[in-house]
């Protein structure tokens, strides 16, 4: 079984004090730590487990600058066989739709029975690239996958629905799945493991190699555009809710409703 996994390198922002840059359309990533997108890490592990049970090859693909080799190498150390990096100045400013077009152009040339992506990325949180990619490739797909069973050319997958419910579906290969966190326990990648693949070659392709025109990708080929970033208003420390017990719980219910606390 030949598997392609699309992975993204994202800044870790949970701990950081973010700064919006001068363009107001992006954050200042200086000093931020980058790593593989959490969902994609589960996707790589899922691919390796499938390979371990039925054999085959795994190719990992990432769109971005040379720094992305870091996450590709990590995936190689984890157990992927080949790595490909897609990079071109024309890719700048791609939204989920344009990103799917870039990936679609690349995977066409690589034999595959299965494509895996993460459900979404930690940074922009679109949750759209995988499903849009499947549509462009004309592949059957399933999003939010929490379990994969392979039987010949048929996959049986579980999808995570709201409220503790799961949906069971069957798919025919070739197919695309977007992988939800928690589907497996991604293995640790040791520093020595990464050092061992330090010299492994990583393929590089640009817009021209993929047969993509400059208009088709990047900001020009996108359907949406970030106009402005801003910080949602948050206070320092907890906002202490005062009042009678009735007022306090009333206020809590309101907060719970707004923040997705009533599932």
């Amino acid at each position, binding site marked *: 079984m030949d598997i392609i996994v699309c992975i993204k390198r994202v800044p870790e*922002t*949970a701990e950081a004090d*973010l700064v*919006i840059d001068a363009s107001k359309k992006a*954050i200042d990533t200086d000093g931020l730590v980058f790593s593989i997108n959490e969902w994609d890490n589960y996707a790589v592990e899922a691919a390796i487990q499938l390979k371990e049970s039925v054999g085959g090859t795994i190719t990992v693909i990432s769109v971005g600058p040379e720094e992305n080799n870091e996450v590709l190498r990590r995936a190689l150390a984890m157990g992927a066989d080949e790595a490909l990096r897609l990079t071109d100045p024309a890719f700048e400013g791609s939204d*989920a*739709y344009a990103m799917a077009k870039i990936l679609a152009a690349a995977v066409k040339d690589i034999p595959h029975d299965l494509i895996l992506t993460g459900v979404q990325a*930690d940074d922009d*949180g*679109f*949750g*759209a690239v*995988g*499903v*849009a990619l499947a549509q462009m490739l004309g592949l*059957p*797909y*399933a*999003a939010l996958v929490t379990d994969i069973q392979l039987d010949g050319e048929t996959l049986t997958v579980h*999808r*995570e*629905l*709201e*409220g*503790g*419910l*799961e*949906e*069971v*579906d*069957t*798919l025919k290969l070739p*197919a695309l799945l977007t992988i939800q966190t*928690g589907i497996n326990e991604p293995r640790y990648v040791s520093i020595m493991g990464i050092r061992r693949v330090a010299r492994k070659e990583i393929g590089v392709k640009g817009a021209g190699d993929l047969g993509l025109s400059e208009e088709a990708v990047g900001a020009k080929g*996108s*359907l*949406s*555009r970030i*106009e402005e*970033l*801003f910080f*949602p208003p*948050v206070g320092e*420390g*907890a*906002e*202490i809710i005062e009042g009678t017990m009735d007022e*306090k*719980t009333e206020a*809590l*219910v309101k*907060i*719970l*409703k*707004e*923040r*997705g*606390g*009533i*599932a």
Partner: protein
Amino acid sequence: MEKIAVWVEHRQNEIRDITFEMLGKAHQLVGDGGQVIALFLGDPSQKGLLDKITPHAHRTVAYLDSNLKDFEPLRYQAAFADIFEKVDCQLILMGQTAFGMDFAPAVAARWEIPFTTDIVDVEVDGGLIAVRQMYSGKVSAKVSLKEADKMLCTVRAGAFPAEDLPTVSGEVQEITGAVEGDFSARAFVEYLEAAVGDVDITQADVIVSVGRGIKDADNIPVAQELADALGGVVACSRPVADKKWLPKERQVGTSGKTVKPKVYIALGISGAFQHQAGMKNAGTIIAVNKDPKAPIFGIAHYGIVDDLFKVVPALTEKVKELRGWGNSDK
């Protein structure tokens, strides 16, 4: 914006709340004289569900086909293709839900509809500006969509209120579906309830977590009831697991689980560093603690300085009322 279509989401013969939330926002956006259109794809036997929708939409387009009982993206797309041209609207709203995420990006890609996902607000002033969150909610973004006849947004659950929907006298347009073709490449099999007792706190959206302030194993049901009412799970800090009041798998912290729910309610947890490390990235942290100096208030977004045994039962009652469970059992 004059005409907005809302994709009605239903599951196991129930309309999902997100539908009403989207209808409410759509009414607000179209204003007087505009048109809110409900798009219903389903099995003829599910027609009864329309009774809940039609009072809140100027027009309901019901595409009924025996193949559409359960959500399946390939079939649903084929149905969509049938009515796509017939529904005159500038904006389509879908939920950023397990169904919406499995459908909307494909619809947008197929018809090259400018779209964005997981919006928490949207303004129409000339063009369309959607507000969505990035970097796990730390930054908000205003996103514009390319000009087109139709646009599509998926809406975050809970972003808009579902109450006080305007009631309008709407028309219903029934279309007898004719979804044909081989859709076996992706087929729905069944729904599965998550196994009871097999609670994975790392996957929960809502966590009610108890610390030493819960005082005794006999008091765990106080938290469990709130968790049940919210559709969440109960977790704990290390001392509670140490005392075996809850199993080790429920422990949050450096030597337990790291969780990232939408909402984390800390009851009687002082918030030692080791505990904070396991939950500080929760979307919203609410702390209830008698001690105003408890470190948990340093990272919580909202706090109540009071006895949890007073706050929690009162809160549970309110949530049950809201859900219409009243005093009766679920």
